[in-house]
């Protein structure tokens, strides 16, 4: 067990940044992110004997992490106010598409903030698929959602993300705050 634990800890250390920031992007706050990583690490350690050596540890842990997040999300959903999907959707539909030139005005912080503005379901799908490189099917398995639901949430999430980034870029351009 000690040997397994040591091996698990070594792998966890190597992928901690990716896991922590996946949890942060999913949950939107550092306290929940730490809790999610903590719980996922304990789950991972308990199941580490089922992990096949030589396979992708990060992907394996990301799946556990996504399960942990979705449990938390379902628990919190009852307590949360209604999400403003409609408002964000309206923005997505009314904005012009993101142009390559807009990127000149965006900093990583703007991208991080835009991602945080997405509704949870869409953000979870985009974070797993686009930020962490899972396939839609892998994300569907990890989150326990039907594939069609993940496809639709990735699609809507991307559309809304473009709209939010475009709006932010426009604002920065108007304020002359761009860094070019």
């Amino acid at each position, binding site marked *: 067990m000690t040997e397994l*634990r040591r091996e*698990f*800890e070594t792998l*966890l*250390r190597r992928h*901690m*940044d990716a896991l*922590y*920031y996946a949890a942060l992007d999913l*949950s*939107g*706050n*550092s*306290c*929940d*992110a*730490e809790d999610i*990583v*903590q719980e996922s*690490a*304990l789950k991972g*350690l308990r199941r580490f004997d089922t992990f096949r050596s030589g396979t992708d540890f990060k992907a394996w842990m990301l799946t556990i992490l996504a399960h942990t997040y979705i449990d938390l999300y379902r628990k*919190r959903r009852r*307590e*949360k*106010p209604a*999400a*403003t999907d409609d*408002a964000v959707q309206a*923005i997505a539909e009314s904005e012009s598409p*993101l*142009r*390559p030139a807009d*990127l*000149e005005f*965006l*900093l*990583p*912080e703007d*991208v*991080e*903030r835009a*991602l*945080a*503005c*997405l*509704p*949870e379901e869409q*953000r979870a799908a*985009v974070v797993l698929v*686009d*930020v962490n*490189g899972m396939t839609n099917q892998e994300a569907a398995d990890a989150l326990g959602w039907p594939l069609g639901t993940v496809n639709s949430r990735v699609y809507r999430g*991307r559309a809304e*993300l*473009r709209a939010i980034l475009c709006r932010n870029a426009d604002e920065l351009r108007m304020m002359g*705050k*761009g*860094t*070019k």
Partner: protein
Amino acid sequence: MNDDELRRLLQTSLQGRRTPTEARERVLQNLRPRTKLRIAAAAAAALLLVAGIGLAAGWARAPRTNPTIRRAIEQHMLSQVFGHAAVTSTPREIAQTVSEVSGRDIHMPGMRDGGFTQMEAHCCEATGWAHVIYANSWLKLSCFVLDPAELDLSGGTRLAVPGLEAWSFVRGAFSVVALRESGLAKIWVGDLSPEHLASIAVDAEQKRHQMQTSVLSVADKGSARQLGAMLQSTPGVEDFQMEPSKQEAVVRYDRRRVTLEELVVMLETNGFAARPRDWEVR
């Protein structure tokens, strides 16, 4: 922008972020076996029993939440800002609103380290207090700024924080932390455990005295964007403003976490010819 370009933008923008050292250590520490777990569990059970008896005894004589704290919770609940709402004010506008309402020039912490965004500030009609709202996708936090004469501390528990007058209150699901300092009072409200809210409020207050603003001159105009990206991912950097026309970056940082010398060395190591100006704004 197509899906692949968007994916590339996300991955390049979000790569290279480092887990805070404390969080990393806590996660790893909790994985390690605890040899004295049983003794600790027995001791904890005994403590819980004692605390439970104490709580039960104190329940009957627990005072009702005082009016100031009750009003703060009501105003917190009334605000319509949620985590997914778009930010309606810039930090500068928020600072201006707080100054206008309170009549004081007050620095409101950005709370970016804790994953929060400053959403908006307004004057509460019912109380006349300045109300600053922070949020992330799960939580909303309120910080009220008021005259200390209005602050009723009855029923609060004094927090043992050196150099800070702070009290903690609990009402239902809400925790409240009240702080008093040099002719000013702040009340923090959130749907969090009292310990968690206290750590946020105390850190925000302590951070206020540790913020430093420095101006970095950027030799190469073309590197401003990359410099911004580098500063963005640097722990301890609270805020920065690029001034491309002057080839300057105004950086606000928490000197408990990073020094100007460390910032300069970090930038030099990464190939940025950025030097601090020979004066500091604050």
